[in-house]
């Protein structure tokens, strides 16, 4: 039988890395300069798609758009209202 169809639909690990869910997005969250890198959004992001990175000595949230589904929970939870949205083009 075709190797692709493992009976019982089991798979090797890593399917959530392979399936880039960024294509599902309708709204795209954008991190603005108001971000202070507090990390609140990283804890709320259901996809684990946000990381805090250092840029020019300043901490800032960075969204991985390969996996961000555009749920905008980060925008809602940001204590500094530092995340804005735009319609995905």
């Amino acid at each position, binding site marked *: *039988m*075709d190797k*692709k*169809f*493992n*009976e*019982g*639909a*089991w*798979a*090797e*690990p890593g*399917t959530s890395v392979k399936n880039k869910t960024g294509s599902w997005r309708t709204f795209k969250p954008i991190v603005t300069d108001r971000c202070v890198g507090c990390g609140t959004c990283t804890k709320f992001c259901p996809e684990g798609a946000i990381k805090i990175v250092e840029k020019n000595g300043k901490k800032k949230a960075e969204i991985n758009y390969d996996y961000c589904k555009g749920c905008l929970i980060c925008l809602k939870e940001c204590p500094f209202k530092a995340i804005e949205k735009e319609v995905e083009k």
Partner: protein
Amino acid sequence: MKKVIEGSHAVAEAVRLCAPKVIAAYPITPQTHIVERLSKMVADGQLDSEFLCVESEHSAMSACIGAQATGVRTYTATASQGLMLMHEMLHVASGMRLPIVINVANRSVSSPLSIWNDWLDAMAVRNSGWVQLFVESSQEALDTTIQAYKIAETIHLPVMVCIDGFYLSHTYEPVDIPDTVAGYLGDYKPKVVLDPKNPITQGMMAGPKAFQEFKEQQHRALLSAKDVIKNENREFNKKFGRIYGDGLVETYNMESADYAIISMGSVCGTIKHILDEKKISDIGLIRIKTYRPFPNKEIIDLTKNLKALGVLEKDISFGIGGALWADVKTFVDKPVSNFIGGLGGRDIQIEDIVKIFGTIRKEEENIHWVGSQLKK
């Protein structure tokens, strides 16, 4: 060893012999005595199993699914509303190709509330991808539950062994309990298991490009169960000296029959008794033991020289007729009358069956409600 025991306890003895590592169950009449006895066996150290007292039947099947996925044999039992609550997870178990074994002590489904026997519960889940076996006696319940593990683990699909609530579950009969199933049922050897050292994903999502093929695989596997069931019926006979027809269907009094009555479960014992006592030669019995996969080829072969048939069943597929009747009609091109009776625990009596025989001889095709008290 022969013992006079309840059908429920016969099933519990079968499960003890097959030694599932995890039993997850929630009590519901008329199934309760099965898992009650099993929990006693575990408490008394006769059975080395984890007995999980879960909070619902949905959880019972979920726990069996999780445990079975790690590579151990599992067991549960339920009935009626419990099977309805479990319905969602029945599809998950078959879709994940987990060879779980369940006993259903068949009981009606509310509303109106009834704790008594019919097949409305099992028939409501006939499309969930499980093998469904219906047995006639307590001995057959024990034997079939042992075979169920072998069948399930061969085809990687779950198996449901249906015993008529009360008529079998609560009735005392002499039952021969094997000393061991060693030499018949080996260790469970799964194809894939959940193991943190060698991670895989089970029960994952399948998109439109893949989903249909998984369902096609399931259907093929369920059809392949026919040969496996026939084979296990023979192998069991070699080892234990008991056999039930060809495993799919059992015939009785068919030698010179012009007509046949088709049915399942414990009511077939009553039918056999009447055929014998009244020395009837023109009517025979075809007892369907394996309901899913459906023994279509066997039904066609057995009925090809007959004039007409009747299907007696304790269920109704609302808006069409009896579920079994509709299945038989799919493959048989001759008059088939449908007799729906015994719902909610009403006894199907000798005079009912004698009347049914008379109607079958008329070679007509109607849906009859046995002993109906409603105006036509």
